[in-house]
């Protein structure tokens, strides 16, 4: 499903964000991406949704090779992903409902299905009551949940979540995490960048840890090593 092969990323200003990174995420996995601030978590995700291209190495996702993507293929790839951005990236001039509906409209979904699917997604994140509010009328956590609803509204096969619980209180955080777990249970690959050690500790899911752009720990590999 997703494969990084000796991937490095150096930004134009000289910052080396990723160094010689290789890993594979098969169909149906739930992966935590951890590491200190600036370790390269968001950079990995931005390669996956083809916002950036690797400086060297190869990034493959759902059959596409990110470095060699033609302009017309970028939207196709993105429609197969649900992305929760660290800074939300909501359209300021649209209500919560319109922001979520937009992700469906873009894919050319049937008009009569758009409204019910949008409301279902908002309900799942506990925001049905704020459907008509504009982003600036929402609290930080409410904006984050709109972003989550938008990412999951068209049932994508892969969900990329960048710090989806940073602005949430304990209860909302558990709700969102449960939501991602449910989605994963339906067969979706979920990659979640997070600092939240409470979530990561004792998790049955795979953990990938970065430090200064290098992979320093991968529970899948290390557990495999541990078994005799």
């Amino acid at each position, binding site marked *: 499903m997703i494969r990084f092969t000796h991937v490095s990323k150096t930004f134009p200003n000289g910052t080396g964000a990723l160094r010689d990174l290789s890993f594979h995420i098969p169909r149906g996995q739930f992966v935590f991406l951890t590491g200190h601030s600036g370790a390269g978590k968001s950079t990995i995700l931005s390669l996956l*949704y083809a*916002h950036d291209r690797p400086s060297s190495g190869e990034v493959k996702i759902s059959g596409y090779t990110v470095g060699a993507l033609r*302009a*017309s293929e*970028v*939207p*196709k790839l*993105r*429609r197969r*992903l649900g*992305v929760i*951005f660290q800074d939300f*990236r*909501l*359209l*300021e*001039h*649209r209500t919560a409902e319109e922001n979520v509906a*937009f*992700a469906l*409209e*873009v*894919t050319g979904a049937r*008009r009569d299905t758009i409204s019910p699917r949008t409301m279902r997604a908002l309900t799942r994140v506990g925001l049905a009551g704020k459907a008509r509010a504009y982003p600036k009328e929402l609290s930080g956590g409410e904006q984050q949940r709109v972003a989550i609803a*938008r990412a999951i509204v068209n049932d994508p096969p892969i969900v990329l979540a960048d710090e989806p619980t940073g602005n949430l209180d304990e209860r909302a955080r558990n709700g969102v995490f449960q939501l991602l777990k449910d989605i994963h249970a339906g067969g979706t690959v979920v990659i979640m960048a997070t600092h939240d050690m409470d979530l990561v500790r004792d998790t049955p899911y795979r953990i990938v840890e970065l430090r200064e752009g290098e992979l320093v720990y991968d529970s899948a590999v290390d557990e495999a090593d541990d078994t005799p």
Partner: protein
Amino acid sequence: MRLTWREVWHSFWRTPLLSSLSIIMIAFSLYSVGLFGLVATNFRHTLSDLAERVEVVAFMLRGTPIETITLASEDIEAFPEVLSVNYVSEDEALARARVELVEFREAYEDLATNPLPASLEIRLRPQFRNAAQARTVAERLRAFGFVDDVRFGQDWVERLDRIRNLAGIVGLVIGAAFGLVAIVIIGVTIRMTVLHRAREISIMRLVGATNAFVRRPFLIEGTLRGVLGGALALGMSFASYRLFASGMGLSGESFVFFTPSQAGLIVGFGLLLGLIGSLISVGRHLRHV
């Protein structure tokens, strides 16, 4: 499609200020073009008034019998270039000279014999009112036996030709300059709108919108603004026209407004400008978002 229209509608009403301002700017630039067009049209109109005066005069030998002249007049009237022929007798010529040439009034009053010859004044059809055609007619008139001399105010006709050409060139140059200004303004307006919404566009693309999807509402919006701007420009031109005409006491005949097809052209020009402007600036900007 319905979504696109909603998009256009929304984007208009979410930035009503920006949207109306850009329409006003388009209107102002087309208004400039329109004003110039009006001046040009009416200048041309005035010129054709002047051109009507282009005539060829054939002076006759003293003592030509009136029958010969009548016959010849009919021949000349049959020339394809000729609109009308007017006979001026020797007495009429003297009477006219007394009225028109004030400085010489007294001189003529003292005269015992009339020194002025009779003449035929020939007016040309509108399409033949230029130096070359007047010369051709003059040559043909010289062939008549009773014709002493032919004049067609060559200088005057040629000067008129030159003014006409110059007016055409100046009109084209200034019109083109203003058109350029309009295109630049429209391009800038839309470019600013795109800049203003750069964040929004980038988010749309991150969510999976194709370039065509992102571009469409901009193109429609640009076109709509162009049309609205053109219509507004037309309205302002008309208001100016009425104001000027009534202020100057000019009648609708000597001072004309655009014909319906010219009016349509202005609006169509607005549409085209809006479309081209948005095509260029959206296309260029999207590459950088």
